[in-house]
C-alpha cells in the first residue's frame, strides 16, 4: 500500500464514522407513550404525616406495622434515603423561624431517560413506554452499576440478603395501576398532596398553579427538565436546592455516554471499519515484497 492509499483509506473511515453520527442522541423520547404517567407532588400541601411511607410498606414490604407509628416525628432528625424495605421516605426541612417546615417525599423519580437503565449491563432496569422505570430481578447480576449511575441515589440494595439480593426501588405500583387503582402512596395521602396522571397533564396543571398562585410557589417545576425530565414532578415554595434536591442539568446523565457509545456502534459500522482497516494494514504489511 502506498502512503496515498493509506491516507485515502483512513479518511474514508473517519467520514463513515462521522456520518454514523456521534452527535449526542439526546435520549430516546420517541419510545415513550404520549400519555405516560407520572406523579405531581405539591410540597406546599404535604403535611409530613408519613402515611405514604406506611402505604408503600404495606404494598411492597408487609407487614407495615401500626398506622399511628407514622406519627413518630423523631425520624425527621436526620435526612433519610429510601432503603430496600422502605422505598419512599419523607424528610423534613425546617422552615424559617415561626414558619412551616417543608416535607419532601422521596422515591425513585422514574426518569424519562434513566441513567440506571443505561448503566445496566444486562437490561434489568428498563424504562417502560408508559412511564415507570422497572426492575427485572431475573436478569440482574448484582453489579449495582444502576445505583452508582442514579443521579438521585434513590435505588438501594438488599445487602442483608446473602443468596438472592435484589436492587429495590419504587416501581410506581404497576400491579395497582394495571387494576385501575392509584399507586398506594397517592391513594392514602390524606391531603392529596400527590396527583397521579398523564405527565403532560401534570405539567399543565403544575404550570397553571404557578400562574394562578405566583405568591404561593417558586416558579419552577422540579423534574420537568432535571436529568432530562422525570416522571415525578415537584412544586415548592422554597428553592429546591434548600430542600435536598440535587441541582441537575437538563440533559440526562446517560445522554452523553449513550451518544458516544451508540454513535460508535451504530449499525456496527465503526467496528467493521476499524477491523477492516486493521486487516487491510495487516495484509499490506505481510504482502510478499515485489522483486525489483
Amino acid at each position, binding site marked *: 500500500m502506498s502512503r496515498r492509499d493509506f491516507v485515502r483509506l483512513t479518511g474514508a473511515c473517519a467520514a463513515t464514522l462521522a456520518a454514523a453520527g456521534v452527535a449526542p442522541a439526546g435520549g430516546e423520547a420517541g419510545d415513550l407513550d404520549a400519555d405516560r404517567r407520572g406523579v405531581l407532588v405539591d410540597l406546599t400541601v404535604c403535611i409530613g404525616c408519613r402515611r405514604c411511607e406506611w402505604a408503600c410498606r404495606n404494598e411492597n414490604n408487609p407487614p407495615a406495622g401500626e398506622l399511628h407509628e407514622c406519627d413518630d416525628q423523631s425520624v425527621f432528625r436526620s435526612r433519610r434515603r429510601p432503603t430496600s424495605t422502605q422505598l419512599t421516605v419523607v424528610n423534613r426541612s425546617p422552615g424559617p423561624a415561626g414558619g412551616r417546615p417543608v416535607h419532601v417525599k422521596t422515591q425513585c423519580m422514574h426518569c424519562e431517560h434513566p441513567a440506571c437503565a443505561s448503566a445496566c449491563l444486562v437490561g434489568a432496569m428498563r424504562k417502560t413506554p408508559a412511564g415507570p422505570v422497572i426492575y427485572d430481578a431475573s436478569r440482574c447480576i448484582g453489579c449495582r452499576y444502576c445505583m452508582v449511575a442514579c443521579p438521585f441515589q434513590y435505588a438501594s440494595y438488599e445487602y442483608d440478603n446473602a443468596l438472592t439480593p435484589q436492587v429495590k426501588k419504587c416501581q410506581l405500583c404497576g400491579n395497582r395501576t394495571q387494576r385501575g387503582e392509584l399507586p398506594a402512596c397517592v391513594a392514602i395521602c390524606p*391531603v392529596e398532596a400527590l396527583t397521579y396522571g398523564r405527565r403532560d397533564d401534570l405539567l399543565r396543571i403544575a404550570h397553571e398553579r404557578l400562574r394562578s398562585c405566583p405568591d404561593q410557589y417558586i416558579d419552577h417545576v422540579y423534574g420537568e427538565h432535571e436529568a432530562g425530565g422525570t416522571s415525578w414532578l415537584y412544586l415548592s415554595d422554597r428553592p429546591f436546592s434548600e430542600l435536598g434536591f440535587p441541582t441537575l442539568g437538563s440533559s440526562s446523565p446517560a445522554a452523553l455516554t449513550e451518544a458516544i457509545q451508540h454513535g460508535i456502534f451504530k449499525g456496527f459500522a465503526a467496528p467493521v471499519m476499524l477491523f477492516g482497516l486493521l486487516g487491510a494494514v495487516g495484509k499490506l504489511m505481510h504482502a510478499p515484497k515485489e522483486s525489483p
Partner: protein
Amino acid sequence: MRAALAAIAVLAAIGAAGAPRSAERPVDRGRTAPTMASPTCLGCHASFGADADVPVNRGRFAHAGDDRVGASAARRTGTPDVVIIGDLANLYGAVVFDHRVHADMSQIAGGCVNCHHHAPEGSPVSACRECHAPERSAGTPTHPSLKGAYHRQCLSCHRDWSHENACGFCHTEQAATGGARVVDASALAHTRFPRLEPSATYRYETPQAPAALVSFQHRDHAQSFGLQCVDCHRAGSCAGCHDGSQGPQESMHRMDSCRSCHAVNACGFCHDQQPRPPFDHAVATGWDPGPQHQHTPCVSCHGRVEAFLRPSSNCRGCHGGLDPQTFDHRITGVPLEGSHAQFACVRCHDASRAEAPATCHGCHADRSYPPQTPGQRN
C-alpha cells in the same frame, strides 16, 4: 395477618369507600342563647326565611359590630353546633367537629370564609360536600376529593399553631370492630386543645416618657367588661392565639386598638409611671359589688362599654323587673329556707340603698348579716 393487612390496604386505597350517607350530621348540644340584647338574625341573614336555613356570609364584621353579640349571633342562626364528619371514615373513626367554636373563633381571623372558601361575602355558604365529591376523580385531578378537602382545610391552620399532624389529634383510630366511637366534643376541648391562658395584665413599655408604662388589664376586659375576643382581636390568625411559642398578637400593641373604645385624650387614662393593679370596683368607686355582683358583667349595670353610665343607687334601678314570687334566691349564694323564703325583699334589704347590706335586726336583735346567714350557704 396478611389477609387483614391486605384488607386494610384495599380500604386505604379506596379512601372514600362507600356511598355517601348523611355526611355531616349536625348535633344540637342545646346551648341557650345569651341573654344580652341583640339584633335579630334576620336583620343580617336575610335568607333565614321560613323555608330557608342557608346562612349567608356577610363578611367578617357581620357579627363584630357595636351590638357586642360577636359571633354569638351565629348561635341563633341555625348553624350547627357540632358536626360529626364520619362519612369517609375507614382507617380512622369519625371526627367530632365543634362547628360553633370554630365559627366563633373564625370571627377573629376572617370569618366564615376562612373555611367556606367559596362563599365570598354576600353569597350563600355551602357545605364542603357540595363541591368536593367523596371519590377522587381522575377527570379533575386539581380538585381535592371531600376527604382531601377536609384534611387540607383543617390542617392548613392546625399544623400552623399546633405543629402537629398526627391523625389522632382529630380522629380516633378505627376500632377493630369497625364502629366509629363518637365522642362528646366538649369533653375533648381542653384535653386536645391547649387552654388559652392570657395573662391577667399586660404591661407595655412605651416611648411616652415619663409616663411610659401602660398596664392593660386583659382579664378585666375579657371577663368583667363583657367584651368578646373579636371586639379587639380582628385581624388575627389561629396561630396568633393558640401557638404558645408566639408572643401576644402584634396588632394588639397599638394604641388605636384601645382608642376604638376609649375616646379619651388624657394620656394619663392609660399611661402611668407605675404599674397599675387590676380594676377594683370597691377601691375605684366606693361600692363593693360583693359576692352577689362579682360575676355580673359591667354592661348589665352600666350600659354601653364606651360610655359607662352611673347606675341608680336604688336596687330597683336594676332589679326593678324582679318578681319576688319567681326569683330564685339561691343565685345570690344565700339559699333561703322556711319562713325566710316567704318574706318580701324589703324585710331584709333596704331597696333604696344598693350599697346597704341585708340586715337581720328587724327581727333578730342578736344576729347580723353577713356573719350569720339564714339557711345553708352554698
